[in-house]
Each structure stands twice: as C-alpha cells, then as structure tokens.
C-alpha cells in the first residue's frame, strides 16, 4: 500500500471517529431537548443560543471534577472498565460502509475503512466484548449495587445476543454474504432489505435496544432499584466515558440497522442524482442520505425512551427467551422455505 493510500485511510478513520464523537456529544443535548419537549418543558437553554453549547459545558465539567477511586475498589480494573467501554464503542464503526466510492481529484476513495468479508460477525464480536467494560467496572467498584448492575448487564446482553444473531441469519439467507459493503450494494435504489425481512428488522431493533442498555431495557442502571447501577461509584470523566459509550453505541447500532435493513446510502432515484451531481458530489449526497436515516433512528431511540416505561427484570428475560428467540427461529424457517420454493 502506497503512502498516499495510508494517509487517506488515516484521514477517513479520523473523520469517522470525529463524527461519531460529535454525534454522541450532541445526542446528549438532543436527548435533553427531546425529553423537555415530551414533558412540556424548555430543556437546557443557558449555554449559548438555545443551549447549543451545553455539551461542551458538560464535557468541561466532567473533566474538571474530582476523580474518586473508592478505598476498597481494585484501582487498575476500576480504570479499565470505562476505558474498555469507550474503546469497544469506537472500534465498531470500522466496517460500516458510509457511502459509494467518491472520486476526489482523480482518485477513487472508498467511504469504508475496511471491507473484511466477515463484517457482520466483526460487529457482533465487538458488541459482545462491550459487556466486559460494564462487568469489570461494576465488579471493581466493590459495591453491591454496582455488582448487581454488572450481572444484570451480562445476562441481558447474552440473552439478547442470541435472538440478534438468529435475526441476522435470516437476513444472511436473503443476501448470501457477510460483508457489509456487499450488503449495502445489493440494496440499490429502493430494494431495501426491510421489505424482505420486516420481522427480522423488528427483532434486530428490539435486541439493539437491549444491547445498548437503552430504555425500556436499561435495567443495569435502573435507578429505582440499584441507585446508579454499574456506575454507582464512578465520578468525573470515568462516568462520562460510560455515558458517552452509550451514546456512541446508539449511533453505531443505528448505523448498522440502516446498513443492514434500511438501504444504507441507497435511495430511490439515486442513479439520476449520481448523474446529475457527478462522481464527487453524488456519493457524498448518498452519505448525507445515510446520515439522515441514522439521525432518524437516534431520534427513534430517544422517542422510545421518553414514551415507554422500563421493563421488570423477569419480563425482560421472558421476552428475550420465550418470545424473541422462537420468533427468530420461525423467521429463519419461513425465510428458508420462501427462498427454496419461490426464488
């Protein structure tokens, strides 16, 4: 690989990293504004016009607060926990295709950092690794509430990973590839996978709510029962990392859902637009389309959070094991029969 290519890849990584951080930052702001709207309040409006500088103020506050490590905690693991949470949140974006190849100054640049041929499985691996951040942090705090939160997170993630994996298998039967780049290409125009896999999408959506620990499945940090859940003992930026990781995860899982089911960067009439805008601006417009879809999903996450109350823990487990897994298996069987007889 020549030096220029390495430079371009590096720039791409930096841009994607920057975008995910900015999106996560402004998700906190959007969440508070949306919550305020739902509850007929004003929301943050002091820092800058419409409170637009609130995330920066929050960030500064987080960094400047006193750092507390409890006396009986395991100091090294106490720091590893949040670091691992933010690390796993950031590395998942590497395999997501953000757009078609862009031609800039005569050079074709793919808008995907790497198209490994087991892309979906890579995302699964990273997601399943994410639970360690919560578990290690919760255990190292040496606090009963933290430990209970960590254990809830572990059992919840494992249970919902199964139905998530099964919902993906049905999708793989349709697409026939594990590479996210190819899956995105196959959905050209309006041939989005959600048309062929509506049940699979619904299952995936529910499971990604559970995997990102968002309401109605935010039992690991259920404040009515567990004080603050796994991050009870955390303060300053270490707490900030946990909260930030949740918003990055939300962004990434929205991006994965858009890539797998909602047509990625494709939209009806994209060929016409590509001819009209040329090889540089056409794909970039596709990127903007994809980004809009991702933001809509992030809004959906927040909409659900401020609308639906939290599940009880046994209800969560019942839903995961007795409803979602049988439904996912039935979906695979139906998809298999359909493919065998009708195509």
């Amino acid at each position, binding site marked *: 690989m020549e030096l220029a290519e390495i430079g371009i890849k590096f720039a791409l990584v930096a841009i994607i990293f920057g975008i995910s951080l900015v999106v996560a930052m402004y998700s906190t702001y959007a969440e508070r504004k949306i919550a305020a709207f739902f509850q007929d309040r004003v929301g943050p409006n002091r820092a800058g016009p419409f409170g637009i500088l609130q995330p920066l103020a929050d960030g500064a506050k987080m960094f400047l607060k006193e750092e507390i490590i409890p006396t009986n905690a395991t100091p090294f*693991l106490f720091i590893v926990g949040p670091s691992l949470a933010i690390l796993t949140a950031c590395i998942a974006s590497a395999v997501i295709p953000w757009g078609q190849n862009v031609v800039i100054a005569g050079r074709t640049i793919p808008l995907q950092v790497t198209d*490994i*041929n*087991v892309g979906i*499985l*890579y995302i*699964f*691996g990273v*997601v*399943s*690794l994410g*639970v*360690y951040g919560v*578990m*290690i942090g919760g*255990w190292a705090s040496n606090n009963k509430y933290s*430990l209970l939160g*960590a*254990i809830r997170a*572990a*059992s919840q*993630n*494992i249970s919902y*990973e199964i139905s998530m994996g099964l919902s993906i298998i049905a999708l793989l039967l349709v697409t026939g590839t*594990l590479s996210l780049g190819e899956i995105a290409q196959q959905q050209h125009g309006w041939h989005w996978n959600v048309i062929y896999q509506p049940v699979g999408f619904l299952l995936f959506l529910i499971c990604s709510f559970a995997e990102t620990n968002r309401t109605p499945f935010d039992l690991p940090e259920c404040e009515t029962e567990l004080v603050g859940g796994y991050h009870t003992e955390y303060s300053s930026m270490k707490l900030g990392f946990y909260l930030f990781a949740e918003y990055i995860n939300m962004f990434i899982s929205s991006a994965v859902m858009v890539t797998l089911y909602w047509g990625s960067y494709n939209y009806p009439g994209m060929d016409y637009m590509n001819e009209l805008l040329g090889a540089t601006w056409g794909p970039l417009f596709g990127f903007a389309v994809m980004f809009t879809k991702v933001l809509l999903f992030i809004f959906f996450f927040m909409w659900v959070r401020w609308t639906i109350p939290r599940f009880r*823990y*046994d209800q969560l487990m019942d839903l995961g094991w007795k409803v979602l897994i049988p439904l996912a298996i039935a979906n695979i069987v139906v998809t298999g029969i359909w493919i065998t007889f009708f195509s």
Partner: protein
Amino acid sequence: MSTFYFIAFLSIFFSILVISAKNPVHSILYLILTFFTFTIHYILMNAQFLAIVNFIVYMGAILVLFLYTLMLINLNKESEPVKPFMVKLAAVFGAGILMVALVSSLKSLGASAPVVLTNPNLGLVKNLGKVLFNEFLLPFEVSSVLLLSAMVGAVLLATKDSKEPKATI
C-alpha cells in the same frame, strides 16, 4: 514469523498468569486475554471465520458466563478449605513425577513435518461451509446432538428438586 513468536509468547505468558493469579476474577480476565491471543493466531493462519467465532463464542459468551458465575460466588481466604500438610506433600510428589514423565517423553519426540494446506483460503466462510456441509456433514450433525444432550442434562440438573417450593425472582 516474529509476529507468531511474539503472540505465542503472550499466550503462554497469560496462561501462566491464569493459574498463578491469586484472585479468581483476575485469572478469568487473564484467560480472556489468552483467548484473545488465540484469535490473533487464527488470523495469522488466515482462518478468519474461526478467529471471529472464537472471539464471539469464547471471549464474548462463555467467558462472560464464567465471570458472571465467579462474581456471584463469594470466594475469599476465610472460606477456602485448608489442606493438611501430608496432602500437600503428596500433591507436590505426584506433580513432580508427572513432570519427569513429560520431560522424558518430550525428549524422545521428533519434530514432525509442518502441515502444508493445499488451499490457503480454506478458512474463509464460504470454503469452510462447503467442506462442513458436504464432506463432514455426519460428524457435524452428530456433534450438534452432543450439544443438545448437554443442554438437556443441564436443564435436568437445574430442575432436580421438584418437591421444594420454586424460587421466585
């Protein structure tokens, strides 16, 4: 090749830490690192699918359950059973004999010729799936029956005491 030696060194290093760590939770964390180095080994051997499955199943699921169980058990110095001196001596003696046997058997061992793969892309998902579902279909399906029986056994063990009142969460 130097990458291999470095990763192999890390594997051995972490697996020694697994058995020498005082705290059981720490030793599970070292075990996770050990499995991570195995994943890198698989990638070095161009076995992408195996690498990622090792990553998801072992690191992402099985060891999470290990950690989960260990966190629930109250393991500390007070509850640890203290073995009598004679038992310890017998253990050291037995392990010493085992080491002598291993060393002597290793000495007589000749280096085997390295296996050369006819198809270097065998580890990719497509090739692996074709091999598994054509040539090795029967062993593959039989092993799934094995897993099923393990699952049924676990359920049976968990619900053995039907006379006692059911625990409610």
